[in-house]
C-alpha cells in the first residue's frame, strides 16, 4: 500500500529542514559506514592470515631440535643433538594417537650460494627431504607430473618436486620441466612434478614457491646425513587433541635422547591447533569490537534521529492537532511519525552501507593490483558478508522504529485541543 500523501508529507517535512535532516542522517550514515569499514578491514586481516594456514591440517604439530638448556645424565648444557631414524619407529611404536608422521631433512640452504644448476642457469632454493605423508599435513598440489611417493622413498630415487619459481628460474618459458634434470649440490635429480603449496606459511622460512622436495631417504644417503632427522611433522588421530600428542611426544623424545625432563628449550615444537585457536580468538575479538564500536556509533546516530523527531513533533504540534481534529486516529499519527523516522534512518543507513561496501571494493581492487607477490600479503579481500549487510539493515529498521516510537507516543499523548491551542 503505497501512500503518496504520507510520503509527500515526509519529504516536505525533511525538505523544510534540509540541513538538520542531513546532519541527523549523517549520524546514522557514519555509524553504518564505520561498522562496514571496520568489519571489512577485520575480515581482510582474518582472510590474509587464515588463508596462509587454512590448508594446514588443523591437528598437526611440528618438532625440531635446539641446544639443551640443562645438564643431564653426564651431558653438559648446550649440547647439540638431532633426531635419528630410530626415533621414527620408536614414536610409531609408543605413541598411539598419531595419524601421520613425516620426518624431514633440510638440505643445504640457498643463502650459502647457488645450490641448483642446469646448463647455464643457476639458482638458490630451499631443499627438503620429505616423506609422502608430508603432503597430507601441509598440502601441495601437483600442477604437472606427480608428487613424491612411497616407491621413491623405498628405492631412494633421485627425483624431485619443484615449486613454480624454480621452474621460472631454471627453465625456458615454453620448456616442459617434467623429465628434465637439475644438478642439486653436485648431484643430478630428475624433475617428476611441479607443485604448488596450498598454504602460504613455509616451515623453515623462505618462500614457498622456491621449494625443491626430494625423497627423505634419497637426501639422507646422497648428502651424508647418516641417520639424522631434522624435523618431524605429526598429525593426531581424529578426535584426539594434538596438544596431548605433542606433550606425549616431547616427553618420549626427551627420555630417549637423555634430555632433562624439565628442559623447556631442547625440543622445539609448534602446534597448529593452538595457533588456530589463538587466531580465531583474535579475530572473533576484532569482530566483537567492531560491532560494539559500530553499534555504539549507530546508537548515537539513532538517538540523533529520535531527538530530531521530537523537535519536529514539537514544531508540528498544531498540525497534528488539526489532523486529529478532522479525524486522524492515533494509530495513523503514530504510523506516520514512525514511517518518517524509519525512512530517515534507512535512507542514511543504506547510503552508508553502499558507500562502505563500495570503498571496500575499491580497496580490494587496489590490493589485488598491488599483490603480484601474493605470499607476503597479510591483508586480503576485505569484504562484508551478505548476512552482515542484512543484519545491519535490520538493525537500522528496528532502530528507526525505536527512534520514531518515543516521539510518536509523545505526539499522541497531546490532546487534540492542546495541540490546536499551541501557537
Amino acid at each position, binding site marked *: 500500500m503505497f501512500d503518496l500523501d504520507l510520503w509527500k508529507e515526509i519529504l516536505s517535512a525533511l525538505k*523544510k529542514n534540509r540541513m538538520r535532516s542531513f546532519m541527523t542522517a549523517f549520524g546514522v550514515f557514519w555509524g553504518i559506514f564505520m561498522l562496514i569499514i571496520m568489519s571489512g578491514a577485520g575480515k581482510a586481516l582474518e582472510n590474509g592470515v587464515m588463508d596462509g594456514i587454512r590448508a594446514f591440517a588443523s591437528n598437526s604439530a611440528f618438532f625440531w631440535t635446539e641446544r639443551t638448556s640443562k645438564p643431564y645424565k653426564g651431558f653438559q648444557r648446550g649440547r647439540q643433538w638431532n633426531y635419528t631414524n630410530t626415533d621414527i619407529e620408536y614414536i610409531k611404536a609408543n605413541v598411539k594417537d598419531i595419524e601421520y608422521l613425516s620426518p624431514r631433512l633440510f638440505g643445504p640452504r640457498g643463502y650459502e650460494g647457488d645450490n641448483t644448476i642446469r646448463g647455464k642457469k643457476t639458482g638458490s632454493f630451499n631443499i627438503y627431504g620429505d616423506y609422502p605423508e608430508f603432503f597430507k599435513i601441509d598440502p601441495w598440489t601437483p600442477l604437472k607430473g606427480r608428487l613424491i611417493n612411497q616407491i621413491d622413498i623405498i628405492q631412494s630415487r633421485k627425483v624431485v618436486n619443484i615449486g613454480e619459481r624454480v621452474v621460472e628460474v631454471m627453465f625456458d618459458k615454453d620448456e616442459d620441466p617434467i623429465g628434465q634434470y637439475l644438478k642439486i649440490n653436485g648431484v643430478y635429480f630428475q624433475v617428476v612434478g611441479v607443485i604448488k603449496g596450498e598454504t602460504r606459511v613455509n616451515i623453515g622460512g623462505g618462500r614457498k614457491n622456491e621449494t625443491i622436495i626430494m625423497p627423505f631417504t634419497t637426501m639422507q644417503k646422497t648428502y651424508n646425513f647418516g641417520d639424522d632427522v631434522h624435523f618431524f611433522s605429526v598429525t593426531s588421530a581424529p578426535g584426539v587433541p594434538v596438544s596431548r600428542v605433542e606433550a606425549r611426544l616431547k616427553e618420549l623424545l626427551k627420555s630417549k635422547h637423555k634430555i632433562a625432563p624439565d628442559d623447556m628449550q631442547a625440543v622445539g615444537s609448534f602446534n597448529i591447533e593452538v595457533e588456530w585457536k589463538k587466531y580465531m580468538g583474535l579475530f572473533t575479538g576484532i569482530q566483537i569490537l567492531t560491532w560494539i564500536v559500530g553499534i555504539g556509533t549507530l546508537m548515537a546516530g539513532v538517538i540523533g534521529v529520535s531527538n530530531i523527531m521530537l523537535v519536529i513533533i514539537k514544531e508540528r504540534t498544531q*498540525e497534528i492537532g*488539526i489532523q486529529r*481534529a*478532522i479525524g*486522524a486516529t492515533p494509530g495513523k499519527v503514530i504510523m506516520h511519525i514512525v514511517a518518517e523516522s524509519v525512512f530517515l534512518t534507512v535512507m542514511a543507513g543504506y547510503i552508508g552501507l553502499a558507500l562502505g561496501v563500495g570503498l571496500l571494493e575499491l580497496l580490494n581492487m587496489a590490493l589485488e593490483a598491488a599483490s603480484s607477490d601474493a605470499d607476503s600479503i597479510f591483508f586480503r579481500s576485505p569484504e562484508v558478508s551478505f548476512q552482515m549487510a542484512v543484519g545491519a539493515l535490520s538493525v537500522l529498521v528496528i532502530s528507526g522504529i525505536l527512534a520514531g516510537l518515543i516521539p510518536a507516543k509523545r505526539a499522541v499523548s497531546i490532546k487534540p485541543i492542546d495541540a490546536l491551542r499551541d501557537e
Partner: protein
Amino acid sequence: MISLKNVHKSYVTGSNSLHVLKGIDLEIQKGEFVSIMGSSGSGKSTLLNILGILDNYDDGAYYLNGSLVKDMSEKKAAQLRNELVGFVFQSFNLISFKNAMENVALPLYYQGVNRKKRNKIALEYLDKVGLLDWAEHLPNEMSGGQKQRVAIARSLISQPKIIFADEPTGALDTTTSYEVMEILKEINAGGITVILVTHEHDIAAMTQKIVRLKDGRIDQIIKNGDLKHFQHQYAKELETA
C-alpha cells in the same frame, strides 16, 4: 441531536483548579443555527471543544446523536469526529504545505478514500465555496476570507451532521465576515446543524438561537424573535461597561 446534562469541567494546573463549566444543561435540535456568546473566560470555547469531542468533561452527561460521549478512546473519538463533525477555526488551521484541494480532501484521506476520488470530491466542495480556481494554491497565497472558505469546504467534505465554528470570523474584516456567515447560513439551510462561538453580537444576531454564558453557567438563551431586543440590551451593556 445534542443534549448536555449538568456538565462540569475544570482545568487543573499544579495545585490550582479552575472550574470552567459549572453545570451546563443544553438541548440543540437537528438543523438549528446556534451561537454561543460570552465574555472571555466564560467557558464558551471549552464548551465548544467538549461538544466537538476535542476535549473531555469531568461530570455530567453528553449525548451526541443519541449516544453517550464519555471516556471515549482516542480512536473512537477520532472516528466519531470524522463521521459526525466538521470544524472551522478562527486561525483557519490549514496545513501549510498542502494546496487548497489537498487540504479540503484531508478528512477523506483519514476515511481511506483513494486519492483520485477524494481530490475530485474536494474540487466539488471548493466550487461550492467559490474557490475552484484556487485549488492548486497553497494557503499562504490566499487571503483570510479565502482560507476560511477552504476550511469550511474541508469541514463539509465528510458530510457531517454538525459544524462547529470557533470564532470563524474572528480574524476577518466585516465584509468577509458577512460572506463567511452567508456560507454558513447556506450550509444550515441544507439541514446541517451549525454551532458557532463568537463575541461579535452582529454575527450572533445572524443565528437563530444565542446561548449566553456567564462564569461557566448558561446565563440566557435567546430565541430568534427576541434577537432585536437582545441586540439592544447588548449595546447597552457595552455602553455601561
